[in-house]
């Protein structure tokens, strides 16, 4: 009998829900500054997906129980760090371009009803209201990874906008027909996991739809914090809670330094 946990943070719930989207034997990529994504992939590897290939930047399969974020900030941690390989950037990009990455993980500054992602600017590009650091691999991953898992630490109307100010990486433009027409390898964003809900995309319209609501969240609250109408089934399922084992693994083994909460402290 699975024992469900009553005690978990939003970051932990998002990590668990993301982990459930990952299949054994897949290859995944994530870049810097997605701590919840790191916790989620490591959780998948030590539970149902031991053969998940994790590519973190240039590192292939870092040890799930070492602090990945300490590598770059602590030279002694770097010396002790274990992984199957470090690639050079060209080899990493070859892997993307051959279409071998099953999924990438992205945290957007803005996402719209068609799943278009903006991590570049708010307002006009040449004189923006807010300049973000830049998308790094977002324009690449949304074209080259087979699917994209998106997570949003805090479900807010300023993140879930009707139309993004700038498309850094495309979602499902032209009602989802654009990717097929252009022969794009990637199927684009497949899931969006927030602190309130799990969302997906409607096949026939390319629009975002509600798939499940987290325990304690309400449809009313989700709609209030989303700037566009969400497609919702008549009876909306509740998101499965994390198990006691999953929470223990995250807290005690995978991320004892609580790096996952950094997603709530930075912007």
């Amino acid at each position, binding site marked *: 009998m699975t024992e469900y946990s009553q005690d978990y943070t939003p970051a932990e719930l998002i990590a668990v829900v993301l982990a459930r989207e990952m299949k054994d034997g897949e290859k995944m990529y994530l*870049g*810097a*500054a997605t701590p919840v994504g790191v916790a989620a992939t490591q959780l998948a590897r030590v539970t149902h997906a031991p053969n998940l290939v994790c590519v973190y930047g*240039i590192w292939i399969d870092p040890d799930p129980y070492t602090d990945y*974020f300490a590598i*770059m*900030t*602590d*030279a002694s941690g*770097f*010396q002790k760090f274990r992984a199957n390989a*470090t690639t*050079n*950037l*060209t080899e990493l*990009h070859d892997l*993307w*371009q051959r279409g071998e990455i099953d999924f990438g993980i992205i945290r957007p500054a803005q996402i719209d009803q068609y799943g278009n992602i903006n991590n*570049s*600017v708010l307002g006009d*590009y*040449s*004189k*923006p*209201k*807010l*300049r*973000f*650091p*830049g*998308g*790094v*691999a*977002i*324009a*690449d991953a*949304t*074209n*080259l990874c087979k699917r994209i898992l998106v997570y949003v630490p805090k479900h807010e109307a300023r993140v879930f906008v009707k139309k993004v100010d*700038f*498309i*850094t*990486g*495309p979602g499902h*433009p032209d009602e989802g027909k*654009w990717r097929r027409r*252009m*022969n*794009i*390898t990637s199927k684009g964003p497949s899931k969006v996991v927030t602190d309130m809900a799990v969302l997906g995309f409607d096949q026939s319209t390319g629009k975002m739809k509600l798939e499940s609501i987290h325990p304690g969240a309400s449809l009313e609250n989700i709609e209030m914090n989303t700037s566009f109408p969400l497609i919702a089934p008549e009876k909306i399922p509740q998101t499965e809670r994390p198990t006691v084992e999953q929470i223990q693994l995250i807290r005690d083994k995978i991320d004892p330094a609580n790096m996952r909460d*950094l997603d709530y402290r*930075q*912007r």
Partner: protein
Amino acid sequence: MKDKVVSLDEAIGEIQNGSSVGIGGASMVYKPMSAVRSLVKRGTKDLTVYAFMGDMDVDMLIGVRSAKKVCAAYVGFPMIGLAPNFRKACQNGETEFKEYSELTFILGLRAACMGIPFLPTRTMLGSDLLKVNNDFKLFDCPITKQKLLAIPAMSFDVALLHGYQADSRGNIQIVDKQIMAELIAYFGKSARKTIVTVEKVVDSDEVRRFPEKTILPHYEVDLVVEIPFGAHPSGFLPLYSPDINHITDYYSAALNPEAFKEYLNKFVYSPETNEDYLKIAKSF
């Protein structure tokens, strides 16, 4: 063979106003920061800066109005915050930012290394970055007839790099466990003039005994400067980590024009040598 070892002042003095400058390293590691401080100190103007993933290098050059244009896939301080001067200058419309994606930046460098006008790729389709990079051209693949994007070769006047060791001939070598060393090669080969600061200058005999460690052979390199901890406060893994304390202090200072001026006076304008700088700047 020609002795390429010079002082930092001599090397940086070669960079003219209006130059395009490629800065090596990525995101707080392997950045030639002593060279960047020297460039700031000289007050070189109207630079176009190429950085794969920029942080203090780009932010400081923008803060002192040395850089008028930035080409990068990212400018920020991962896990710390947005780059204060960069952000402000972009928002005021004072600095032009040509935002690349990670892959297209590297492809631009690779095309320059290969001596060809562009490299084809199937990335960035459907992205508004195509409007920012209007020199990227969509074309029909002559083989498959599919749409491809041409990424033009990216070349610049000067590459500023930091390496592990070099001999006086300019052979640049890496250290065991160094990562992303290929960036040194890509930037070095894409530049008309390549300036490399190194942790140490060694005898040519040592280089020739370990030729497999040479990432950039002498004919790609113009000037070499010996500067221990020359990447500080950026890291040089596995030798030293980014000095997160110092970088965080910089970040806080850069949020406020007065504090930024104080930072520059203390850490850039006052120290006469990099040793003087390290005495007050290094937190480990």
